[in-house]
């Protein structure tokens, strides 16, 4: 195939200029691979954190009701459903929490610690104390780390909880939790029965948390519970729809950004090819005179775009991989407040990201080569030969 010979010679003869085009393509591919790897890692981490820090399904009271009264029966029904791993009923209310002169608002949750841990893996987040301690006799409480910091309290300190209409009660701190999310600022756990007593609501709960074996079946199961019990059951996807929407919107913006980067590298290919075509007008004329078809002329210049593109993409993939490995080795800290509780940039190196970046780059490079290649193939041989 003489076309590839000519294409390779054109590139080799202009190695300085073509090197710059290859570098432009390689850099664009590497930047995009690193960026996609960061975003994939970020997305997966956000979903993981979101799923880990909340029940996969949350059952709330029926419409126009404030509480779930017959929660034991509801728990029994849910436990029978396929794929359900754990069920935890809770009573959650607002309360003011005080230590000496410090007063803060808290989301005061009454739970059965064993059940709650099975649903939310609470123990993993415990930085001090024992989670089961709240089921022991007496008023015991576990606080979120930031709430404890604001109240300036630690293990074994006593805090006073109060709520309009309820008798203020002292609780001894027996544990500190750090989930890495904003919940750390308001979280307060105590035993379910004690919290029900505190609010004067014995025998009722405000919600039921459920953990399932496959998080992507949560939506279907929530709908069934909703339909069959009349209670309002929401999956983690519905509850976190804002975050998921935000991630999807972010993905759309990022695609535009990627296309712009690829377009810049595409222009560098178009530029070098246009230059070669302009330099080679006489040569193209002679090739046509020797019987080269217009299709072959088109193929020669598209091959040049392809060769430059594939070289750039290969170098870019290697460069992108090395950059990702380096970024994984050096943890880059980020402020958790701005990154949904993440304290470092997560990177996920996935083969499909290399494939996507490489394929898109190749498509844009070939498109960039079409105009100069068509221009070359449409030259009039007589004019081309006599242009020298």
């Amino acid at each position, binding site marked *: 195939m003489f076309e590839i*010979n000519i294409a390779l010679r054109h590139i080799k003869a202009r190695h300085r200029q073509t090197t710059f085009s290859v570098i432009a393509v390689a850099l664009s591919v590497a930047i995009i691979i690193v960026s996609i790897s960061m975003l994939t890692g970020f997305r997966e981490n956000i979903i993981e954190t979101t799923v880990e820090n909340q029940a996969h399904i949350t059952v709330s009271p029926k419409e126009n009701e404030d509480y779930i009264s017959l929660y034991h029966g509801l728990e029994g029904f849910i436990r029978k459903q396929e794929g359900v791993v754990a069920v935890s009923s809770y009573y959650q209310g607002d309360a003011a929490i005080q230590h000496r002169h410090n007063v803060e608002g808290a989301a005061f949750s009454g739970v059965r610690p064993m059940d709650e841990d099975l649903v939310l893996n609470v123990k993993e987040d415990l930085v001090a104390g024992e989670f089961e301690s709240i089921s022991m006799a007496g008023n015991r409480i576990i606080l979120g780390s930031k709430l404890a910091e604001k109240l300036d309290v630690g293990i074994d300190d006593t805090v006073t909880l109060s709520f309009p209409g309820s008798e203020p009660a002292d609780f001894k701190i027996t544990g500190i939790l750090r989930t890495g999310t904003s919940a750390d600022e308001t979280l307060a756990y105590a035993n379910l029965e004690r919290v029900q007593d505190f609010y004067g609501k014995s025998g009722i709960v405000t919600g039921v948390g459920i953990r399932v074996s496959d998080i992507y079946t949560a939506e279907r199961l929530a709908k069934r519970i909703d339909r069959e019990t009349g209670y309002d059951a929401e999956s983690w996807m519905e509850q976190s729809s804002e975050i998921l929407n935000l991630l999807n919107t972010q993905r759309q913006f990022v695609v535009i950004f990627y296309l712009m980067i690829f377009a810049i590298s595409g222009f560098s290919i178009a530029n070098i090819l246009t230059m070669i075509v302009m330099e080679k007008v006489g040569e193209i004329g*002679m090739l046509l005179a*020797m*019987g080269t078809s217009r299709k072959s002329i088109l193929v020669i210049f598209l091959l040049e775009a392809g060769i430059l593109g594939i070289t750039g993409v290969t170098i870019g993939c290697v460069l992108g991989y090395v950059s990702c490995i380096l970024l994984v080795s050096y943890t880059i800290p980020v402020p958790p407040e701005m990154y949904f509780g993440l304290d470092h940039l997560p990177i996920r190196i996935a083969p499909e990201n290399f494939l996507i970046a490489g394929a898109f780059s190749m498509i844009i490079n070939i498109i960039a080569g079409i105009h100069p290649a068509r221009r070359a193939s449409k030259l009039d041989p007589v004019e081309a030969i006599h242009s020298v």
Partner: protein
Amino acid sequence: MSDKNIIQITNLTKIYGDGVLIKALDNINLTIERGEFMAIVGPSGSGKSTLLNMIGILDTPTHGTIILDGVDITQASEKKRSKMRNQKLGFIFQYHHLLPDFNAAENVMMPLLINGIKPANARAKAHKMLEEVGLSERISHRPRQLSGGENQRVAIARALANSPDIVIGDELTGNLDSKTSEKIYELLRKLNKEHNQTFILVTHDERMAEKTERIIRLVDGKITEDKTT
């Protein structure tokens, strides 16, 4: 058209321009036999290069027909025209138009590769052709490493590589000194006798034209003289 005629031109007219029309060729009728060694002469703008481009299937006429080896090339498809340029015709221009990124042998191989000949066979043929034009020592040299005369001889070897029926030369010695031009003409004459190919050479150099067997004189797009020398 009898078998001994390779080209039959009938009522060939070429008009250029949109607004102001220029008649480059005016009702040309011409028959060229196989193996002829002929020249087309005439002053600048007489239409000799236009006629050559028509015979070389590089341009299309406004009216008339050109039958080349039994095929009406004015009606042929683009694909057929390319194929005929490759297999039936060899071109030598004033500027050699060698591919600068390829050496002498690779340049001569090019029409053979375009014709789908295997690279090993094409290389062997290219070496033979370069030997015939006296450049067997220069096969690996690139055009910039060769003199003007040597480059033109490589261009001749390339034009003859596919053993075409017709070799077209457009002012092919226009860029060379008279001594080198003489040598090139002698070489072409020798090749013409050896291969029995038709040579049609456009020149404004009357002295060179006299070295051919037949001279066609064009003035204002018309044949004013057709003489055998």
